[in-house]
């Protein structure tokens, strides 16, 4: 069992307090909302994709520390990556936060590994994955808001 300190690590507290890539893109190519009815977490993703790469990404959100920090870390992680790379990262990340048996590969996940702690709090997994579900949907061209329920 992970310690609580592993869930609310300094990185999460810091990204919650001063989220990166926070705000709006003026005239974004893509925009999509995500909503977690359980917690009331809300987020809006703004995206510009250029030649199959995420050229710019920003988000606007209100919610718990896990959801804000996760979105902040996600935007840092996927910015300038290709759409295909972003999707692979999400698949791996989803396993990281749900599969308690999995060894945490700190090299592979970098900062994202700090979110592995939610695996011991099943009701909080959706807080960590809301931004990723929204990203996946917006990249797939969906325009209906994402909800995690």
């Amino acid at each position, binding site marked *: 069992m992970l310690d609580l300190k592993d*869930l609310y690590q300094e990185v999460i507290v810091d990204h919650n307090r001063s989220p990166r890539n926070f705000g709006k893109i003026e005239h974004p190519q893509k925009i999509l909302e995500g909503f977690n009815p359980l*917690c*009331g977490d809300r987020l809006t993703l703004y995206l510009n994709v250029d030649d199959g790469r995420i050229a710019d990404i920003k988000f606007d959100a209100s919610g718990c520390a896990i959801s804000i920090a996760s979105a902040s870390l996600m935007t840092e992680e996927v910015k300038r990556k290709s759409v295909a790379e972003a999707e692979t990262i999400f698949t791996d990340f989803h396993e990281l936060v749900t599969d308690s048996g999995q060894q945490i590969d700190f090299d592979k996940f970098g900062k994202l590994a700090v979110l592995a702690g939610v695996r011991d709090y099943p009701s909080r997994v959706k807080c960590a994955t809301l931004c990723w579900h929204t990203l996946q949907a917006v990249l797939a061209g969906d325009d209906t808001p994402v909800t995690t329920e």
Partner: protein
Amino acid sequence: MTQPNAAAPSASDPGFPVEEYRQDFPILSRTVRDKPLVYLDNAATSQKPQQVIDALDDYYHDYNSNIHRGVHTLSELATDKYETSRGKVKDFINAASDKEIIFVRGTTEGINLIAQSYGRSNLRAGDEIILSEMEHHSNIVPWQLLCEQTGAILKVIPINDAGELSMDEYKNLLNERTRIVSVAHISNALGTVNPVKEITDLAHAANAVVILDGAQAAPHTQVDVRALNCDFYAFSGHKLFGPTGIGVLYGKQALLEDMPPHHGGGDMIKMVTFEKTLYNDLPYKFEAGTPYIAGVIGLGEAIDYINNIGIDRIGNYEHELLQYATEAAATVTGLKLIGVAKDKASILSFVVHGIHPHDLGTILDHDGIAIRSGHHCAMPVMERFKIPATARASFAFYNTIEEIDKLITGIDKAKRIFK
């Protein structure tokens, strides 16, 4: 029952043997994440004493059978226990007759029953239903459905910054089109105890029917439906130390007699032909199908348990817990109580500056402390106070001063993490 433990401090009522009562609740001796469980989510559901757990077990173990239709011994035993429970409920809320006690799944089903049976047969387009801004969704959505079906209109009594109903606004809303007034006796999101007697009298003066949502009141305060003179009263067994899936709808006999059944089936009929069916007498008219027999019997046991302690004593002790918790919360900087009505039940809803209630809930859970975080099925209350959610600690008579101290320590810990 076990002997009381060496006097653990139990608020200022030293005669209240909280440690003794705690022994009756097996779950209270378990650990959560290697810490002793501190259960402060009683407004969501209460824990069950061994007596209730045994009652469920005994039914399935010793006399499981269907009720009302068998002439064999087991069926008679089960029927007798089931109907005895009805009598206990009747006495518990001081109803006039067993006929006025209808077993339903819970408060939610009780309110839906009134909306669909009484509401659909009595309301027309333009008629008005008055609710309050502090209602649980289960006392909002059934009325919205009814409005869609009938063209009736919802009116909402606003609340002030303390979380109290505005009685002046209520009086203004009442008029000759008002048919129904449906409000919570005690609010689950704020803890406010509403002046339900006054609300009822005013509604009756306007010829409206009154429904009280007693989900939060029945476990904490004496309910006397005849003194209140309300027309309907609904509550849930699981918040009253009884099983989930069983609840009670009280209705005045004269009103229930005139209402059509909401479900058809076995048990609710006297005679069925394809031409005509004769409905059964009260309360069976509203109890179609095989009910939750064990649940009813378990609820009766829960009521016995409460009566043995005394609901007034429970209320007094909980009030001391609330007072202690309120004073302790006032010492936590950045903590703001949501709901500071003059008359409050043992519910503490709050927000802590810079900490989302869900993060607080997780941090407390790590120390074995169970509170609720969220909108508490009362989204309009959150909207009123312009917050997405609150943290809520709600106390039962088996909670202690030490547990409240642990809660405060836990909140301080969360503040250190987020500082």
